[in-house]
């Protein structure tokens, strides 16, 4: 059978040899409407080196792409920058098949790979700042713990001025184009932001430190090769600037109103709040959890200054769709938000109190009194909702002014 898969050259000595997953739509709870890629890279040095591997079912695609450049058994070193299974799933099989001289990972990566695969393969730990000679060129490693797993590290190839950044600067985007400059700008920024919001956001403080750490090395970087999506070879300042902005989490004049409704009462309240916010000059995203995916919500929250949440009371609780998104948001730790809660109920009305408690746990500053109503909101209740919107707007505008 002829080989339908080819490697793509991304620099003088490096080829992309990853796999394209056109059909994946759910990445552990993060929806990926454009699919993804699992990127592996081949360095054609004296010691031919493979950087990361791919998700287990895509092993043959990766090996086919490698074969279009070199016989895979010629690979001497494998580096695992990130142990998560979308980048290591086929590692044990690949080691058995090509029998490389050595396999390297960070110290925590070594432990993690052992915990994942429970096999006897020897993985050699490399330290932060350690260099590895590939003969005619060398790699330098940098630990990037918690971007976004404890084992994560970058590898830098000075010869090609290329940074292998594992999941950082990546995006879930299946494409036959291999470079970001071949993708429409709007798609790129949306997918990079969604990826940041859904994967990297909780570790924003670590991201800021890592950006400083990279710039302190003095490495000349012309190409950033992440583990998902396309390779950055132009305008690198742009993605670094965006990471710095997203990690900074400065509030903007934007409020996200998220709600779930049973009989449209909570929905009417959400509408009144949103209209009032907009009337005060706030950009509003109104999202019903009956229709919206949690990934979309965190994307919208990424650059927001206020988060206002509403739910009907169902069986003394919040609606399950709201519990879903609140759990997801709490884990992703968006920072510097103000907020409030609202909702309708039939007899007991616990939902608003529960939502307010959840906001507090998320360190969202409650900036307006909550509004709850029995059954359908009347004019007086809707006026209270408008008041809530106005109060939040004033508080947000003041905050933004104060941080200028």
């Amino acid at each position, binding site marked *: 059978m002829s080989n339908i898969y080819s490697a793509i050259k991304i620099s003088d000595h490096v080829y992309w040899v990853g796999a394209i997953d056109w059909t994946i739509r759910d990445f552990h709870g993060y929806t990926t409407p454009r699919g993804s890629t699992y990127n592996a890279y081949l360095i054609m040095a004296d010691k031919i080196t493979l950087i990361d591997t791919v998700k287990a079912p895509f092993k043959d695609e990766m090996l086919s792409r490698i074969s279009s450049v070199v016989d895979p058994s010629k690979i001497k070193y494998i580096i695992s920058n990130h142990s998560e299974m979308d980048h290591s799933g086929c590692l044990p099989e690949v080691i058995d098949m090509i029998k490389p001289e050595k396999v390297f990972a960070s110290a*925590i990566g070594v432990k993690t790979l052992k915990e994942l695969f429970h096999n006897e393969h020897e993985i050699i730990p490399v330290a932060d700042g350690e260099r590895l000679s590939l003969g005619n060129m060398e790699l330098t490693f940098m*630990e990037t*713990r*918690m971007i976004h797993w*404890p084992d994560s590290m970058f590898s830098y190839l000075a010869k090609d001025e290329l940074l292998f950044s594992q999941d950082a600067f990546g995006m879930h985007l299946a494409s036959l184009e291999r470079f970001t400059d071949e993708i429409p700008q709007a798609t790129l920024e949306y997918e990079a932001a969604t990826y940041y919001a859904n994967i990297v956001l909780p*570790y924003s*403080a*670590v991201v800021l430190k890592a950006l400083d750490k990279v710039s302190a090395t003095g490495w000349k970087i012309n190409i950033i090769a992440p583990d998902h999506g396309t390779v950055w070879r132009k305008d690198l300042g742009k993605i670094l600037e965006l990471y710095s902005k997203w990690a900074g989490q400065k509030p903007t004049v934007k409020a996200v109103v998220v709600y779930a409704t049973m009989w449209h009462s909570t929905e009417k309240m959400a509408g009144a709040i949103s209209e009032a916010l907009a009337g005060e000059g706030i950009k509003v995203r109104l999202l019903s959890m009956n229709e919206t995916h949690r990934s979309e919500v965190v994307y919208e929250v990424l650059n927001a200054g206020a988060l206002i949440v509403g739910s009907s009371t169902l069986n003394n609780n919040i609606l399950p769709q709201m519990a879903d998104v609140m759990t997801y948001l709490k884990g992703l730790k968006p920072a510097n938000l103000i907020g409030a809660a609202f909702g309708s109920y039939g007899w007991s009305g616990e939902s608003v109190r529960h939502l307010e408690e959840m906001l507090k746990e998320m*360190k969202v500053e409650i900036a307006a009194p909550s509004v709850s109503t029995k059954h359908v909101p009347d004019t007086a209740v809707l006026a209270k909702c408008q008041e809530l919107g106005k109060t939040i707007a004033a508080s947000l505008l003041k905050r933004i002014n104060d941080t200028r």
Partner: protein
Amino acid sequence: MTKYVCGVCGYVYDPDKGDDDGGIPAGTSFEKLPDDWACPVCGASKDEFSPE
């Protein structure tokens, strides 16, 4: 007072600074942290920490 390092993510607990997000005031020694205190970066428990 001794600083403690998280064995998972490398975060350093500095008693002189405390942990604002976790509601721990400056001047709290590592030993005085509540048992359910967790690393503010990765969520690891207290027993993952060792003296710097």
